């Protein structure tokens, strides 16, 4: 539901980085969004399209990479990935001692720029 704030934030960061490197246009933006972040890709794209107008990112595409929720189990010593947005037990052995390693990402990864 807060995709608008996220889109606003990522456009600002992209513009900032583009200008700092002395470029004039942003051609694409790549973001990594974890499945547990609660961000809906379609809503993020929609907000991005609306907010980029009139900025140097006007022609930019937004590429969203979805990162699944994954972790490592201390009991069976295996890596696992789940479909849910949370982990309450290791899906392999059912153990409850594990570290969640991915799924919360909300990162801008890379931008493509031109003069």
């Amino acid at each position, binding site marked *: 539901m807060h995709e608008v*704030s*996220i889109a606003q*934030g990522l456009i600002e*960061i992209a513009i900032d980085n583009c200008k700092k490197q002395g470029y004039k246009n942003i051609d694409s933006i790549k973001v990594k969004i974890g499945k*547990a972040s609660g961000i809906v890709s379609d809503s993020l794209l929609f907000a991005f399209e609306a907010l980029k107008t009139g900025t140097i990112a006007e022609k930019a595409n937004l590429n969203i990479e979805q990162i699944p929720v994954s972790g490592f189990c201390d009991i069976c010593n295996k890596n696992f990935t789940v479909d849910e947005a*949370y982990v309450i037990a290791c899906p392999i052995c059912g153990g409850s001692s594990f570290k969640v390693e991915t799924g919360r990402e909300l*990162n*801008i990864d*890379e931008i493509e720029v031109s003069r």
Partner: protein
Amino acid sequence: MKIKVVTNILEANDRIAAENRKVFDDAGVFVINLMSGPGAGKTSLLESTIKDLKGILKIGVIEGDIAGTDDAQRIDSLGAPVVQINTGGGCHLDANMITEVMNDLPLKDLDLLIIENVGNLVCPAEFNVGEHMKAMLLSIAEGHDKPLKYPLMFQKSSALILNKIDLLPYTNADLEKIKKDSLSLNPKLMIFEVSCRTGEGTGEWTKWLQSLVK
């Protein structure tokens, strides 16, 4: 040309939150970000907490709502310092909104500042505003499937206040399931069972608040 950025999109918010936090620390006020879905009882809990701790803790409030000043008026009528933020459609408070209003409160005179976030079980959990602690309410009438459906807030909160337990006889809510699922998402969660209507259980909560502030 490609530029590797690798930045958290909420970094700007987190930076402002850290500045707010410094202002709170310098003023010596403990700050709680209070979150829940709409109508779970945040303002009711604030009202009962302010009454119960009158003369013991000086409590100030920031009210976050999409529109209106009803909640701030309820706090104001109890004589506690309060400011209202209207997000105008925004589904959560962010750090900058707090920066804009926090100096309207007598921070140095307060022991505890509670920020009532916009009623929403999803978005507020993602945005730090400079608080020392996040706490959330769930009213038992919202259903026992909520922790696993909306895990983020349960994971980020230090305390869960299960409100409206006076309604238990009229619902099929499985309190044990709510507690079990919440604790498996967040083993360190402090859980309080209260009714803001009857006052049942609120003593444990206010006792805990006092232990945090001292």
